[in-house]
């Protein structure tokens, strides 16, 4: 596994994302509640750039006409056919066998300055 520099942690605030090229692959790095997650920027359905879809929540329900918002900021909705994927696992919510690759992300600090923390994705 090789670590690729994503950028400074401050570039990706909570709820934000950054799409990078690493080793010829397009990867989206997301900040969910201060924790970083990375998924391949390819939808397993028809190959759309998955991470260009909206970052959103899982809408659940207790019955007709009722909407419950869950997992705020943890879902990416593919830009083409709106399939929903969990950013934390890369799995399609309603059919987890369908998934995009997820990658380990580390945040490394080389000195005492908080601003200098760097985010690495490991491929």
């Amino acid at each position, binding site marked *: 596994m090789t670590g690729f520099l994503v950028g400074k942690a401050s570039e990706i605030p909570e709820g934000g994302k950054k799409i990078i090229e690493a080793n010829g692959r397009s990867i989206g790095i997301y900040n969910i509640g201060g924790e970083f997650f990375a998924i391949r920027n390819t939808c397993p359905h028809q190959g759309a750039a998955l991470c260009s879809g909206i970052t959103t929540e899982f*809408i*659940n*329900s207790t*019955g*007709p006409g009722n909407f419950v918002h869950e997992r705020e900021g943890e879902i990416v909705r593919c830009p083409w*056919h709106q399939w929903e994927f969990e950013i934390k696992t890369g799995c399609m919510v*309603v059919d987890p066998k369908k998934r995009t690759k997820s990658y380990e992300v580390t945040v490394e600090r080389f000195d005492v300055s908080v601003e200098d923390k760097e985010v690495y994705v490991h491929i």
Partner: protein
Amino acid sequence: MEVTEGKQIKKQISKTKRTIIDSDIHNYTPLEEIKKYLPRVYRDQIDLWGWRLPGSLYLNGGTNVGQRADSIPPDGGFPGSNLDFMSSQYLDPFNVEYGILTGSDYSCQASPDVDYAAAISSAINEYTLEHWLGRDRRLKGSVFIPKQDPVLSAKEIHRVGSHSDMVQVIVASGADKPYGNRYYHPIYEACVEHNLPFTIHVLMEGVGMNPPTTGAGWVSYYPEYRATRPQVMAAHLASLIYEGVFEKFPTLKVVLQEAGVFWVAPYLWKLDEDWKALRFQTPWVKKPPSEYFRSNIKVSSQPLEPTPNQEMFRQMMNAVYADETLLYCSDYPHWDFDSPLKTFPKLDDALWERVFYQNAADLYGLPARKKQGGTE
């Protein structure tokens, strides 16, 4: 000729080794008889102004508006009016263990006068109880309801739904709202309470208070109208699933009757694909639509679409989960009758048993055959 027909029937008996359940037999419920069961106010109105019930916009097949030309009883009565003749022409020779009666007149379900529709529904139910059910242990009945007023409908289901010979609630496919709409929920509450399936039978599309035969408007000819029936039934199916009826009433069973069978397969594929894409708009739909289809819907077989070859037939049967969902229906005495012997190509034994007996037995709570192995 008589001798030839006798031979033919004998041969058919020898091939029907096991008894069958037929989920669609049309007994005749003549208005002049129904009238006797109506309250005085409606009898007086009918005498003064007629029935004010809408009729079909289209031709039909056969004779006597849609009946088999050979189904007129010896007494000269209307096809489906004579139990003895129904027995000798159909129930006996085709080894029918149970037959579900589906009546002959759904026109009150297209009347905007809901109290009148309720009175006619009750009258049909009383007539059927008195003149058909109980006279032959093989026959079971359908509760007619004024579906355009769900509260009155629920009242009628509570009135007669617990009768042991009433095995389902029946409505016409023509409706002013698709059947998943929450407006209908009082009907489903009552169905669940009395453990009665809700059967949607093609008829009354484009008639009376019901909307046009298609969303594209009225079609002109009878074959065209028949071709539009799956559209209307498809709309009801999607509505039942997307309005969350089976989440709210998980034990409710719905029968799609006489709109054909194999169109359901690609329709389910489409429903599932769109659910994957748009799930978050109707998050109360918890499962792919095809799973609700398998758990809550049955489809009646007649008029079954022949396929170009047997391999395609086998695949289509699999694609509609026929072993779980398909109910054999003859539609006797209508002209487009599907013979129990000649409609299906050879089915493997287990599948034949599901389609011709067990799916209906499970749905309607009917017992196993009296004689295993039949009357060969």
